[in-house]
Structures are given as C-alpha cells and as structure tokens.
C-alpha cells in the first residue's frame, strides 16, 4: 500500500509535464487555424550578393483551401496568384494571361525565393502528414521550447523529417529544421517577433535559409495581418485575377 502511494507521487510530475507531442502539435495547429485572413508582407530574397525586395498582400480562406495574393512592388506590380484546392493560377499583367500551375510546378520557388508555392499556400495541418515525437525541452533564443521531431508518414509529404522548436507558452514554432529524404538538412526556418493578434500569436518575421547554398535567405516581414474578416466577394474566383 505504501509502495503504491509513493509511486503515485512520483508519477504526478511526470503526468503533469508530459503533454504528448501530438497535443503540442495540435495546439500549434490550433493557433494557426483561421477562417479567413488578410495579410501584407514584405519579402526580401537574398542570393549571394544579390538582394531582391518584393511586397504583396493576400487573402486566405480555410474553407476549401483558398488563397489569393497580389504583388505590389514595382517590378512585379499586378502579378497575382490564386489557389483553389490543389490548383494554382498565376496572372501576369504584361502578358495579360492566366497560367495554370499544377503538379510538379507547385514545388518550385515562389518568385525565385527559398519558399515553394506549396510552403506558402499549404494550410494543411501538420498532423495529417507527419508523425510527431517529443525529444526534449531546450532553451532557444531565450525561450523555453519543446523540441519535436515530426517524421513523414506519407510519401507525398514535402520533407522526410522536420524538427520543431516550439515555444512552451505561446505554442508557436520558433525554429523549424527541414530534412530531405537521405537525412540532409535542407532548410531552416526561423520565426521571431511574436505578436498577439486577437486571440492568437503570430510570428511577425519569418526567415528561411536554404542550407545547400551559402548566403541564400528569404525573409518575410508582416506589415499587417487581420483574422476572420469578410473577404471581398469574388476574391477567390479566376475572374478576380484579370481585374
């Protein structure tokens, strides 16, 4: 009797802290869930000595996986992207033409950046494609973090493995390492300047480094983000591209 009592006490701290990896990922996913969103982003693409600055705004809608983006910097003014489920359309004002991008093309870098179209447009929850495992707790960038290893459970996941450093308080990943099949670190994503928007935390600055190249980095800085707003009618239609 005494023995089991002791055992019980020993177990309490374990139970209390043992939020499972799935629960953590769930919370992360929850924090990122939205019905609709509007954002404005400044993107800097650095490749070697070259640096490109771009600016765009966009709308997203969870229902039906819809997304719309329009570039506003001078070089790409009027270039628009529309994603409806698995299909992506691009509108180029110079050619006044709508192009459909599908299949393999979706995996290419957006406007020459280190982010693939998929990375940006994919709103799928992590748990559908990855099996998560809690590794350890670690301090990252002055914050207490859970280190979670997410292994792909389906062949069509983008990465074989991702290691996420998730802020224990805000449930926001502060660092994500993405590994290719073969075990090589491909990309590193750093999320910082976490701000509270409504009820959720949002990283205001996202940096993506391509680890295969020296000096290659894409930085996204939010200028504005609003959740659950009314998206203007017909935003997610192909007609809106030509407008």
């Amino acid at each position, binding site marked *: 009797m005494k023995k089991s009592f002791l055992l019980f006490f020993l177990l309490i701290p374990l139970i209390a802290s043992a939020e499972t990896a799935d629960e953590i990922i769930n919370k992360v996913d929850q924090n990122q869930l939205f019905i609709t969103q509007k954002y404005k982003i400044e993107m800097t693409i650095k490749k070697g000595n070259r640096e490109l600055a771009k600016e765009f705004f966009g709308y997203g809608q969870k229902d039906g996986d819809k997304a719309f983006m329009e570039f506003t910097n001078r070089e790409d003014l009027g270039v628009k992207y529309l994603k409806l489920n698995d299909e992506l359309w691009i509108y180029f004002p110079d050619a006044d033409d709508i192009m459909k991008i599908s299949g393999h093309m979706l995996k290419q870098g957006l406007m020459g950046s280190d982010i693939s179209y998929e990375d940006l447009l994919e709103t799928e929850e992590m748990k559908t494609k990855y099996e998560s495992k809690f590794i350890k707790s670690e301090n990252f960038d002055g914050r207490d973090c859970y280190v979670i290893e997410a292994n792909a459970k389906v*062949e*069509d996941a983008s990465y074989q493995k991702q290691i996420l450093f998730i802020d224990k308080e805000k449930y926001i990943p502060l660092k994500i390492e993405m590994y*290719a*099949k073969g075990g090589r670190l491909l990309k590193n994503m750093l999320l910082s300047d976490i701000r509270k928007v409504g009820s959720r935390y949002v990283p205001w600055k996202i940096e993506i480094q391509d680890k295969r190249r020296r000096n290659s980095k894409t930085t996204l800085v939010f200028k504005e983000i609003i959740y659950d707003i009314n998206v203007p009618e017909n935003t997610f239609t192909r007609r809106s591209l030509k407008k």
Partner: protein
Amino acid sequence: MKYLFKLALKNIMKARRRTILTFLMLSFGVMVYLIMESMLAGFDKASFQNFIDFETGHFKIRNENFDEDHPYDTDYSLKNTDQIEEKLKNLDFVTGYTSRINFLSEIDNGIDSTPVITVGVDPENDSKVFSLKKYIIKGSLEKGGALLGKTLADDMKVDAGDIIYITFRSSKGMFTSIELLITGLVQSADPKVNNLTVFINLDEAREHMGVEGATEITFRVKDYQEPERYTKQLESDFSGFRVQSWKELSTDFTALMSTKRAGGRYFLLFIVVIALVGIINTLLMSVYEKRREIGTLMALGMEHNEIRNVFMIEGFLIGFFGSICGLIIGTITNLYFIYSGIDYTAMVGEGGMGFNVMGVIKSSWVISAYISSLLIVVFASVLSSYYPAKKVMKMNPAECLRTVQ
C-alpha cells in the same frame, strides 16, 4: 553574236585592273559562301548524329500521356519496362535497347548549386544504344556514384573523387537529397551532356525517385534512315504507348537547324549586293570611258540594242567566270575542311556555338550551293549591267564623238 562577245571580251580586258578587282570580289564572295555552306552542312550532319547518339536513339517508347512540354516530369513513366524490353528483344530488327529515367534536380557542392538533368542509366544496356560510354574521359559510372559532364564539373569546381549532392522532389513530392561520389567525368560531342547532366545508376534513380520502371526506353534498329518502315509494326506491338522515331523526336531540332541555315542565305544576299555594286561601277566607268568608241560604233551603223548587249555580255562574263573561279578555289579549300575537318573545341571553347557538336567536324559537299551561287551571281551580274547598258542606248552618236577625253 560572236562578234559582240569578242567586243565585250576586249572591253573587259582593256580595263584590266578594274575587271580583276570586281572579278576577285565575286570569286572571294562565292568561295566564302561555298565554304560556309559546306561547313554548316557538316555541322548539321554531325549534330544529327550526336542527337541520335546521345539523345534520341532511333526510337523511343514512352508513356502514352508523356508531356512534351515537361519532358523531365516523372508523373507519366513506364511501369512495366521488363515486359517491353522482353518484347523488343524478340524483334529481329531491333539491335539494342535500354531504359533511362530522366528528371530535373539541383546539384550542389555545399556552396553553389545549379539545376541539372539527372539521368538514371542502365549500366548493362546503355552502351548498346547511346555513345555515352565511349566519351568517358576519367573513371566510370559506378554504383553509388555519379558521372558528371566535364564542363559541369569544372563549373562546380569538383573533380573525380569529390562528393556532390543532388536534390530533387521524388515523384511523390518528398524532398530528397543524395550524396554522390563523382566516379567519372564525361566529355562528349553533345554540349547538353557536358554542361548539365548528371548520370547515376538506373536502380538508384528508381529507388530515390520512387519510379517503378523508367521514363523512356530507347532502342536502335537496323535501318535507321527509314524509320517509317518499322512504324506500323511497332505501333501494333506497343499500342497504348507512345512510340516515336528519331525523325519525330527531332522536329524542334530540325526547325532550329533550318533557322541557322537561313544565315547562309543572308550571306548569299550580301554577295549579290557586292556583285551588283561592283559590276554597276565597272560598267558605268567603262561606258563613260568608251563614249567616243561607242559613238564611232553607232556612227558606223551599229544598233543601239547591239551596243546594249555588249555591255550585258560584259556583265555576264564577269559574273560567270568570277563565280566559276570562286567555286574552283572554294572547292580546293574545301577539300581540307571536308577530309581533315577542324577541331572546333579549340576554336570556340566548349559552348558548341549553339550547335550540338564538339570536337573535329568535317564539312560536307553541298551540290545545291554550287548551283545556287552560280545562278544567282550570274543573274545578278547581268541584271546590274542592265543599268549602264541602258545609259548607252540613250546616247546620241554625235554627242559621243564630241566628247574629249
């Protein structure tokens, strides 16, 4: 008529220096044109041979839905390559076949990266169809290794024995990065192979890419000059697949070639203009010089038409003999280019000048260039002598005789 010819010949001979200059201009132009056409024809021939030896083979079998706009997409591959290969083995006119997987990837040495075409090669059968093996300059293609184009290796600053990575999305979409030991270098006559191709083992390509069979099966036949002979049988034997001969596979290539040939036409036009200006000049001068003579001839009762003809015959003679002379010198010079050839690698580096060639290229005889240059130059010469000749017709014998020279 004979008399007119004699007169024309005399006129030409009289103003020897001027005639020789025009004559030389014409011969030189024709000669250069002839050499250039032969060279281009040689390039064409070599390009086609390379295209067959390195890219198309004689026939290719691919998935029915293969998308020509995205040739490196592995979505539509051949699943049952063994069955197809077995079938090909039993066809008596097929002399060799091989499977390959082509896909796009990015190669990097940890510092720089560049997009490349990765080709999974069947180590046993590839040399029965493609000439790749003959052009390996260092090492060989081994399991777990890669064979790199020489220029690509130079660009990436790597050599045999070094490690490189190739990164791509598998056919299912997962990022895959594999480490490869460079086990060999290849330098071929095909710039595509040299500049942007990484060859790896077929089985490894299958495994990493997640493709069961191959993206294409290429084979050679006995009589490749007339692939149409086999088309019918191949279509019935391999229904449900896309079977294309090298002729069909090279339509883009042929179009490119003909664009390049158009350059030769411009050159001919250029010579024609030189001929026109030169001949007009020579004959106009001669008209002015010979005013008194022309006046005398007219006074003696020679018809205007006859005098005009003399000048046109002069034009014809310069044009005709100029071209013949050019063709003879051109032919003699061409003998060297045709039988010895020139090593273009040394001349233009390894870019191939946009042609699919490299190394020693021999020119070919182009009979049509002889005919076209002769006809066009003679026609242009006669045409350009028409203007000075017409001037003569307007002349008045009395005025001509009054001219003091």
